[in-house]
């Protein structure tokens, strides 16, 4: 009887550990596609101008050099990322480097971050928007496999 109880406790603990591990993986493994924009942003009547060039470095890896009105993208596992930006305000000017810890909403697959707005310290609703892919124009040509396995064809 004692062994049976112990066995059930071990099994329950094992299941609990698996459930906890699954929840942890759901939290830390959420993937996002993040698009960085270097565009002027209008918010509540005020305009935040776009600098001449922004070098985007995510988690230590250089992603792109963004000139005005350009966009780049990066995929990230997890909701947090370390964003380093090297900003050149005017052509031929000096670069200033800033490091940010960016948090992406967990539910969104793809987000667009307006870098000038983000660096200016505007609220999230101003610099962040969801990326919604354009609806697919492809035809319904991917028919499920409904072939005749027996090879009778149309009898």
């Amino acid at each position: 009887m004692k062994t049976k109880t112990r066995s059930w406790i071990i099994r329950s603990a094992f299941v609990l550990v698996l459930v906890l591990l699954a929840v942890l993986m759901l939290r830390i493994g959420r993937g996002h596609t993040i698009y960085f924009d270097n565009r002027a942003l209008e918010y509540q009547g005020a305009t935040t101008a776009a600098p001449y060039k922004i070098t985007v470095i995510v988690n230590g890896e250089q992603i792109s050099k963004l000139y005005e009105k350009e966009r780049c993208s990066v995929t990230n596992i997890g909701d947090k990322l370390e964003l380093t930006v090297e900003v050149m305000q005017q052509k031929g000017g000096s670069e200033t480097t800033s490091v940010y810890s960016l948090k992406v909403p967990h539910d969104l697959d793809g987000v667009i971050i307006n870098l000038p707005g983000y660096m200016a310290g505007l609220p999230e609703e101003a610099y962040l928007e969801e990326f919604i892919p354009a609806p697919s124009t492809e035809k319904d040509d991917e028919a499920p496999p409904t072939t005749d396995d027996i090879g009778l064809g149309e009898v």
Partner: protein
Amino acid sequence: MKTKKNFNLGSLISANSVPILFVIICAVMIPLSGLPANYLLNEVVTRLGRNTFLILSLLIPIMAGMGLNFGMTLGAMAGEMALIMVADWQIWGIPGLVLATILSIPLSILLGLLCGSILNRAKGREMITSYFIAFFMNGVYQLIVLYMMGSIIPIMHSTLKLPRGYGIRNTVSLLQMRQSLDNALAVSINGVKIPFLTLIIIALACLFIVWFRRTKLGQDMRAVGQDMNVARDAGIDVDRTRLISIVMSTVFASFGMIIYLQNMGNFPTYQAHTNIGMFCIAALLVGGASVDKASIRNVFLGVILFHTMFIVAPAAGGKITGDSMIGEYFRVFMSYGVITVALVMYEAKKRKENRTMGQQLANEQKAEEEGKTA
């Protein structure tokens, strides 16, 4: 008391005839194919990481005397379903693989219980029964994936769904999980990429099997595998032991399928699992295993020989005949052929054993009668 066995070259060759044949085939084909050694080695190591776990899943049912588990396809289906869910939830990288592994456990246990309980009702005909269970469950899999996913089971992303709004597309992309396990801790030696983490996981699975053989349950399985009636008389719950072996095999197969598919980076939703059992069984048999005996050594030898043949056959076929399709035909023919030969050899061996036992019994009876009359 230990008896010293005499070394007999003939029996050694006959016991290892299949691996020897494949060594010869590979030895002839490798130079003919003209493939560089680095490329060949890279491919073999990749396939070793990709396939070994799946083939390991076949060892436990063989230990329990249930033969080659064609029902491992069920585990592969469980792994695929878990991967579809994880891909839809956008869980990427190693966390995605861990989550898929966890999700596949209840699914594969359920399928293993179903398969095991049917096989317990078909004792002595496990292989053909498991083969047809796989066909039957393929229909159930299609029903779930083609009609229930997206309509009853929520699927959020249109990239996974068929344009009609329900059902999964013909190909599921695992781009964000692709080789995440193989690339973690990978080392490159002379241009040959060694997927270290994958190999560590395979080594752990091997250690588990070695350990499991020594446990009470493992010993019970071996006893059941040797003789079910004797095991039952010894107080072993034969049906339960056989059921556990199939459940374990199915769970192992689902893990193996996840490892396999993360290496590929995408999978054909409705076909990925269909031939997986066949090729795994063929590889195990090429490694020198039989229907009633298999070891970890057979798994590794089988993967290396079978997949070396797979890599070099098209190129060698192309060089010999000018048509690489000949090589393709050859490797398919060899895969099915080796299974057929193994099954025939098993039946022949069983009949020979029965004949020898009958002969022995008759001789004993005759000697007894002669003794009485004397």
